């Protein structure tokens, strides 16, 4: 484990991605402790340009955009994390089950997975979001997680299938260990790094999905997230009013966070998949 980490640290991509992520996390966790202002407070006129008091100006409600941005990043990342966890968990379970157990379980689960990949998940995401009565950040994360697991499932299955016939697995089978024990102790450790990478990707796509769904007005009620900030900016015609500070910062932040996560993922990919090391 230690050697893995040391190798990772030598990869520039991983390093840059990790540093960006850590810095951002630290900032959004520490800043609210220093500045306890309420981001919901409407303290200025609408769409005021950045000034010394309001570092990013004000939004359409007259709220401090910088404060909102900090809270928004936190909410969006939280949603991304929860969605990522749920999606990875589901994908892991389904992938392992269908990959290891095989036979009819595999057929059913694979059919299910493929179906969910092919039917545009974003459409299902929208339909479910619209039909729910009250949407909180958690519920939105739940829905995103429930609709984005197929990728992980497929990838985990492929890995599991290739591991299924390895010697140590067969050995454990002959020794009479239960299926569950075999999966957890013989297969899981070998795909752990892969699963972690999938998790990172799921978090990134969770953040993107939250931003998309919130931008359409189907996001969490009464919450400040990067997506809802952009949504309000669009409804109140910020682009036409020239209030770039209302939507460009959240957009850039989304891009930076996902970029950092993708970097981490690519860095790890190069380490664990030697064939693509350039």
């Amino acid at each position, binding site marked *: 484990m230690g050697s893995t980490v040391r190798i990772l640290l030598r990869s520039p991509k991983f390093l840059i991605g990790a540093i960006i992520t850590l810095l951002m996390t630290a900032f959004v966790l520490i800043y609210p402790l220093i500045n306890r202002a309420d981001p919901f407070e409407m303290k200025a006129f609408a769409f005021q340009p950045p000034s010394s008091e309001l570092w990013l100006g004000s939004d359409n409600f007259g709220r401090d955009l910088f404060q909102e941005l900090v809270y928004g990043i936190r909410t969006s990342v939280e949603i991304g994390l929860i969605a990522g966890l749920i999606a990875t968990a589901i994908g892991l379970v389904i992938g392992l089950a269908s990959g290891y157990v095989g036979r009819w379980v595999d057929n059913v689960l694979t*059919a299910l997975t*493929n*179906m969910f*990949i*092919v*039917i*545009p*998940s*974003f*459409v*299902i995401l*929208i*339909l*479910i979001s*619209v*039909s729910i*009565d009250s949407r909180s950040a958690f519920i939105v994360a739940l829905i995103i997680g429930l609709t984005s697991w197929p990728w992980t499932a497929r990838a985990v299955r492929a890995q599991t299938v290739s591991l299924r016939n390895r010697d140590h697995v067969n050995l454990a089978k002959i020794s009479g260990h239960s299926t569950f024990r075999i999966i957890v102790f013989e297969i899981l450790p070998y795909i752990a790094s892969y699963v972690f990478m999938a998790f990172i990707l799921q978090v*990134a796509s969770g953040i*993107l999905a939250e*931003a*998309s769904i919130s*931008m*359409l007005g189907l996001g969490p009620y009464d919450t400040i997230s990067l997506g809802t900030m*952009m949504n309000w900016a*669009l409804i109140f015609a910020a*682009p*036409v009013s*020239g209030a*770039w500070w209302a*939507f*460009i910062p959240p*957009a850039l932040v*989304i*891009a*930076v966070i*996902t*970029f950092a996560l*993708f*970097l981490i993922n*690519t860095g790890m990919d190069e380490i664990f998949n030697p*064939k*693509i090391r*350039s």
Partner: protein
Amino acid sequence: MNAYTKYFVKKAGWYLATLIVALMLNFLLPRLIEGNPVSTIASQVSQGMTDSDSIKRVYENFAREFGIDKPLIVQFGIYLKNLLTGDLGTSFGLYPRKVSDILGSAVPWTVGLQLPAILVGWILGNVLGAVAAYRKGVFDKVLFPVALFINSIPFFTLAIMMLYLFGITLKWFPISGGYDYQMVPNLSLEFIWSVIRHHTLPFLSIVLVTIGGQAIGMREMAIYELNSDYVLYSKLLGIRDSRVARYVFRNAMLPQITGLALSLGTMIGGSLICEIVFSYPGIGTWLFTAIRQLDYPLISGCTLLIAVTVLLANFTVEIIYGIVDPRIKAAQMEEG
């Protein structure tokens, strides 16, 4: 080609099953929304009424006209029956216009925007990725982070930024619509020029993000191939670079084609949101209007169209893939 026919039939059957599931979801999910789809038009008709009973009667009349007073199973049956004759139903919000009519006018715009955008993005992205893998050096080091960054930006975010930068600040392009509102559609040069001008920004925003994603994938695959044994051996043998490149390219393309099929769904979804940002008169804008008004038939119609398109596209790609990749044939014969 028995094995191949088997492959074809198996795939077709599976896609059909998926289609049915998609149909059920398309039908069921919008109707789970709590709210009365009749209210948009019924509230306009009952405006000014003061008697509860008469207002209630208005609502009930419309509910009957729209056929939503029957139990769900019956409605689903009627829906399927109508589908077989090509009748997608009548819109609630735009009563009494037919859904197929509405969609028919929107499809050319969406197809005209997305098909070229996705294809161009895919081709350009793959070319760039392959070149980057081959050339290595500075080109690669610059291309990769840039492509990754652009790929991290969601479609619509790039769309909004482009709208703001090129449309509003620089005023190079118009900011909404499919063509100038003052014009009437005709085949004049003026009209075509107007369409192209309105087409550019949404087109570019989809293309750029697609390039980003494809370039990264292709680069990875190309590096993988370039490091494989047969390439090293060919180089040792002194075979010309361009000949080797052709084989590399072909081998690296295969997973990309599968990748295209799988990400088609996401791309179509993302570009639909693009349409919202630019108020482009395509399916995306209609879908969201329909959702806002709880217009079940129109929602189902749009989502069905999207699902069918993605399914068809996937099916086509898989067939092509099956023809192109000899390993598939072999696998089929093995499983035989």
